Structures are given as C-alpha cells and as structure tokens.
C-alpha cells in the first residue's frame, strides 16, 4: 500500500499546532487505507530533535530535512525538499496545512511533481479506495466534493477544522538526504516582522471576537480587545468588510469572501449585521454568538445564541462575567 506524507510546519524551531492537525488527518486516511503516515519536517539544523513528538499524533515515521537556511520559511528550498521527499516515497497523498506557509508551498510542489492539488479542505474521505476531498467554494456559500486524478494527490487542510487526536505510533525519526540546490533559490525572506499583539491569526484562533459597523468607530475597539483578553490567549479579533473598508481595522482581520474564512470553536459577532459574504466566511464556526441592536439582522439566522441590544452595555458585562469565571477556575 502506498503511504501518506504529512508536511508539517515549524517556526523558529518549534512545530506549529497545524502540524498536529495534518498528522492526525493523515492518520485517519492511512487507517482507512491500511497504510503508514510519514510526517515530513523541514527546518534548521537540530529540528529533528523535537520531531519525534509527532509519533504521538499518529506518525509511523518522521522524515527530517535539515538545512542551515531553513530557519525561516524559504519557498524555493522548501519546495525542493518537499518535492524530493514526495517523489522518493511514492505516496498516495501528500497533505499540507493551508496556513500562510502551506498555501505558498503546496502549489509550488504540485507544479514540480505535475500533481493535482485541492486546497483548504474541510473534510477528507476514502470512498472505493479513492480520496474524496470536500472544500468550500465561493468562500463557503457552497461546498465542492472533488476527486484528484493523479498521484500523489496533494491536499491542503484548513486550520482548526481537523482536530489533533492522540494516536500513538512509533514516530521513528530518520534524516532524509535530499539533493538541494541553494544556487537556484532566488526568493529570500529577509526578516519576519511580528505584529505587536502575541495573538494567533484570526484564521487559526480558537475563539474570534469580531466587530462590525455597530461598533461605531475604531476608538471603541478597546471593548472588544478587553473581551478577547478575558477569554484567553487563543482568542483573536476579527472584523467585517464594512469596518475594514472604512479603515477602522486592518485587512488581515477581515472575515468573509474578500478576507479570511474561519472555523473557530466560538465566534462572537458584535455589531455585525451579517452580509452574505461575511456569513460565508464564518458559518463553519462551532458556536456562533451574535450581539446586535437589530433583531431582524441576518446574523441571528446563523447564530446559536443571540442577544438583542446595545453592544456598549453587553460587551463590558460579558467581559466582566468571563473574568469572574476565569478567576474562579
């Protein structure tokens, strides 16, 4: 049986959470096929030492490509390394995280391997021995089920959808000696500039507190920041298109068809009426809370829980209640 390759992601020598998600999803496929999961770790010298932990998430083998230039994401070098590992293993499928790195990397590898790629998948299934990928289109207004005619089948997985599940396997670490050609690497990442807030990206956050025009102006975002702070470190801020277009918030926070599509466990929409292109981008959230003055706002149609009223009274109260809860824990 041909195996599954799970491409992981590290930043500054630490594996990111999406890596566990991809390995866990690969485990599910491998079990359905009676195959093995090979996790691939590409990173700087020494990254192999922390790679054995991937056995915990279901990796039978952990293949490591180390290079001194791989401390930062290096598009050309990573693509060479992943394509070489994928060729060498003759895989049934190669899974990537649909993170910023994975979205950049997977198409390059697909072109190198001349292999079909489906991106941002939200479900995988084996039917009659073939892989069926479910992926949102039109930012989630519809879902497409697709088959990939060719091997290996390349798929990137939407962050936060495939939950990491402990499923202990050997996780045998092996150094992979692939031919790398640094002279051909022309894209150079000079530096990584982190935003001031130490918060996950809105696309990877477990909880999203999202604000719309009902917040009346950028000067009121402190209320949403305080709520986010009270909820905890895996909470991030989101925004509607209206407030991004108005220049109140950066585009990197925008949720919807012309922004990011998100699947947090909890999505709190404050003062967002719920335009169709916004709803498309967040309707796969686990639980949706809407706070809005207008009881007729479309956001209430997708919300699990709604409160009708003034966000400027409701949000501070919610922040207080959650703080109280956290202090009792």
């Amino acid at each position, binding site marked *: 049986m041909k195996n599954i390759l799970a491409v992981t992601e590290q930043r500054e020598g630490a594996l990111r959470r999406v890596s566990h998600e991809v390995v866990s999803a690969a485990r599910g496929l491998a079990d359905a096929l009676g195959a093995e999961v090979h996790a691939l770790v590409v990173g700087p010298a020494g990254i192999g030492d922390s790679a054995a932990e991937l056995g915990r998430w279901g990796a039978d083998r952990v293949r490591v490509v180390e290079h001194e230039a791989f401390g930062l*994401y290096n598009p050309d070098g990573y693509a060479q390394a992943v394509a070489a590992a994928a060729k060498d293993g003759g895989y049934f499928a190669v899974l990537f995280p649909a993170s910023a790195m994975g979205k*950049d990397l997977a*198409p*390059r590898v*697909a*072109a*190198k391997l*001349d292999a*079909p*790629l489906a991106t*941002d998948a939200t479900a995988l299934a084996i039917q009659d021995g073939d892989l069926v990928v479910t992926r949102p*289109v*039109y*930012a989630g*207004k*519809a*879902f*497409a*089920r*697709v*088959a*990939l*005619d060719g091997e290996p089948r390349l798929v990137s997985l939407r962050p936060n959808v495939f939950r990491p599940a402990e499923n202990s396997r050997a996780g045998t670490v092996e150094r992979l000696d692939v031919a790398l050609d640094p002279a051909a690497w022309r*894209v*150079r*990442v*000079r*530096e990584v*500039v*982190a*935003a001031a807030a130490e918060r*996950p*990206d809105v*696309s990877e956050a477990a*909880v999203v507190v999202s604000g719309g025009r009902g917040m009346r102006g950028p000067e009121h975002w402190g209320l949403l920041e305080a709520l986010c702070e009270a909820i905890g470190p895996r909470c991030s801020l989101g925004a509607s298109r209206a407030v991004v277009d108005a220049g109140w918030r950066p*585009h*990197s926070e925008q949720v919807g*068809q*012309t922004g990011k599509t998100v699947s947090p466990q*909890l999505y709190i929409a404050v003062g967002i009426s719920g335009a169709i*292109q916004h709803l498309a981008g967040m309707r796969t959230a*686990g639980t*949706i809370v809407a706070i809005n003055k207008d*009881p007729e706002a479309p956001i*209430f*149609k*997708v*919300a*699990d*829980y*709604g*409160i*009708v*009223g003034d966000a400027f009274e*409701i949000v*501070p*109260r919610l922040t207080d*209640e*959650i703080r109280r*809860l956290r202090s009792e824990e």
Partner: protein
Amino acid sequence: MKIIVCVKRVPETEARIRIADDRKGIDPAGLKYIVSPYDEYALEAGLRLKEAAGQGEVVALTLGDAAAAEQLRSALAVGADRAVLLKGAAGMDGLATARALAAELKDAGADLILFGMKAVDDDQQQVGPMVAELLGLPCITVAAEIEVKDGQVVCHREIEGGYEVVEAPLPAVVTVTKGKHEPRYPSLKGIMAAKKKPLEEKEAQAGGERVRVLELSYPPERPPGRIVGEGAEAVPELVRLLREEAKVL
C-alpha cells in the same frame, strides 16, 4: 517596465449562489460578474508600479469564455494599456489553468507578472505560484506592499500574526493582497478610452483537468439558534449556555 496582470471573471461577492441542475457547477442565470477583488488589487499595484517607473506597459490577461472581455474592458478603463483574452475554461484545476497561462506568458517578455492572491470563486489560491514554477521564475505570494528597485522586487508578505520582508530578482511573479492597494475608479474618459484600446482574443491551449468536481452542495443548515434575551441582563444566561451547553468557555 512591462507588467502583465492576470485577472479572472467571477460572480459578484454579494451574490447568492445557485447550484446548477447537474450539481457540477453554479447556475449563471441572473448573476452579475466582476473582476475578482484581489485581481483588482493586483491591477492597482501594477498601475502604480508603472507610474512610479515613469514608463512601461500594463497588460491585462485572462483565461475565460467570451464574456470575460467585459472584465478586460474594466481593466482597460482603469488604466491597463491593452488586454489579451485566452478563450478557454478556467476550472478547479489550478495546474491546468497555469499551463494555459504559462504558454501565453512564456515569450511575453514581462518583467513582472501579477495575480490576485486568490480568485474568490474556486478559492484554490494556487495558479500564481504554479505559473512561476512552470516558467522557472521566482514567486512571492500574498504581497501587501510591493516595491521594485535595482532589478529586485521587495514585498511585505502577509503571514499569521505579521509579515515577512521578501525579495526576488526580476523577472518575477507576485500575488497581491489588499494592503494599501485600494483600487481606483474608472473615469468617464477612461471608460471611453477603453473601447479603443487593443483587446486581442486567442484560443487557449486545451485542458488536462485533473481536479474533478463530483458534486457541489449548499453548506449544511445550522440548527436554529435562539435569542437568549435583550440587553446586558441576558449576559449571565449566555455565559451559562456557552459553558454548560456549548462547552466552549
């Protein structure tokens, strides 16, 4: 400097989507079509780079059916110098699309090839870097800022929680996100001029689609929710529900 901007005709983002009877695609009846918003940012970036250089040419290129000429006219109206329509189907397989575009771009002599970072219909987000690989060009994706200097392109590439400063030598492929690329509106003069600008039509190199759509479906309906109450007094009950029922706090 010669800049080629690849654009795509897509349904308007506020539109409701109706799945076609064969369930393999959408029903185009009654839909309004636009230039995919990220492609508008790419076009804006291209026009600004040409203006900054003080000379050059911006060419709009699309793969699509005859109706996509409408989107090329929009590109010409905001300032593209000429346009090329490759007649063919742009399906879900990015590599098939990339091959058709690469065949056209191979000998086009562009210094910079720009794409929107994704098209907002299939959301595959893959054609730009695939074209770069096929042409052997360097590629920077999701650029919020783009600067060309001394034969290099330097971009701010958006990543989770920040950005990377990335550089590559020209010629190069760059995919563009919003950043400060707020697209300009066409002037009446621009719209009139667009009618006279060259728009060349060619047959695209055919298919080879390997991403096969089995079926489209609507998103699962969310179970009906409830209004917990009105005003701040409803908050304790909301918190209780989030803890005990939804178990998300």
